[in-house]
């Protein structure tokens, strides 16, 4: 294997699938990159009632210490999308 491009594709896939990525060369300064610099994330601004946010944040911090509100919103949205698709499928 390895002589033509298709053999090479299969070879790379075999060798590397399921393997952990090579560590990126760490920059010497600055904080580690977070969600703000991750292209898979985008900022979402929404308006909710103050009391709702306060209650939700208190419960979230108690039940999932160390996790930020973004993760709660992400989880709720993922569940919403999944439920919607299941409902559409059940109806269709």
């Amino acid at each position: 294997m390895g002589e033509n491009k298709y053999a090479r594709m299969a070879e790379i896939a075999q060798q590397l699938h399921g393997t952990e990525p090579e560590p990126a060369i760490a920059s010497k300064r600055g904080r580690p990159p977070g969600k703000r610099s991750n292209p898979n994330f985008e900022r979402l601004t929404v308006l909710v009632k103050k009391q709702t946010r306060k209650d939700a944040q208190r419960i979230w911090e108690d039940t999932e210490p160390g996790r930020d509100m973004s993760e709660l919103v992400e989880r709720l949205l993922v569940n919403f999308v999944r439920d919607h698709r299941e409902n559409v499928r059940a109806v269709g």
Partner: protein
Amino acid sequence: MIICLANSKGGQGKSTAAIHLAAFFQKQAATLLVDSDHVRASLAWGREGKLPFDVVDESDQEAAMRRRRYDHVVLDTPGSIDPRGLKELAAGCNLMVLPAIPEAIAMDGLAYTLHHLKDTKADCRVLLNRVRHNRPKEATELRAALDAMGAKVFKTEIPDLAAFDKAAAQGVVVYDVNDPRAMRAWDAFEALGEEIMYG
């Protein structure tokens, strides 16, 4: 898992199948789609970044796989792939999916592809693609012909639905298309993914 989409005859829906199988496997674990087709149909499909998995061409495959862990790799290949390339791919993947549209001329390219794969130990299975609901006889006859040849054929068939064309035009997976049959289209690929995983 490494899955390769191949058929020596072009226009059989390899890229549509590659995109939707990658979408299915992405729901299980990180999946990479590698497009080596000259037309770059899969890359074009993902150009707006709306697909839930990564798509690269074969020149970027190694770099992509060193950057990130992928548990599943889907390889989309050109219709013009030569017999040697077919065999090399078959030897290197866990499953070779051969999409075929049930029509008389599809059999020529398919027979050629199957002929060159017959001596390999690879798991090669034909996927009846774009099956028209008002002409079921075409699929039945192709299935019977393939059975007679000893070829393995997926039980799942992919229906011929406009939702797939809309998905390609919008650069999304078919479940994100606003079409009354979009979920029927996606269900077919979910059934195919489950057949691959669980038999």
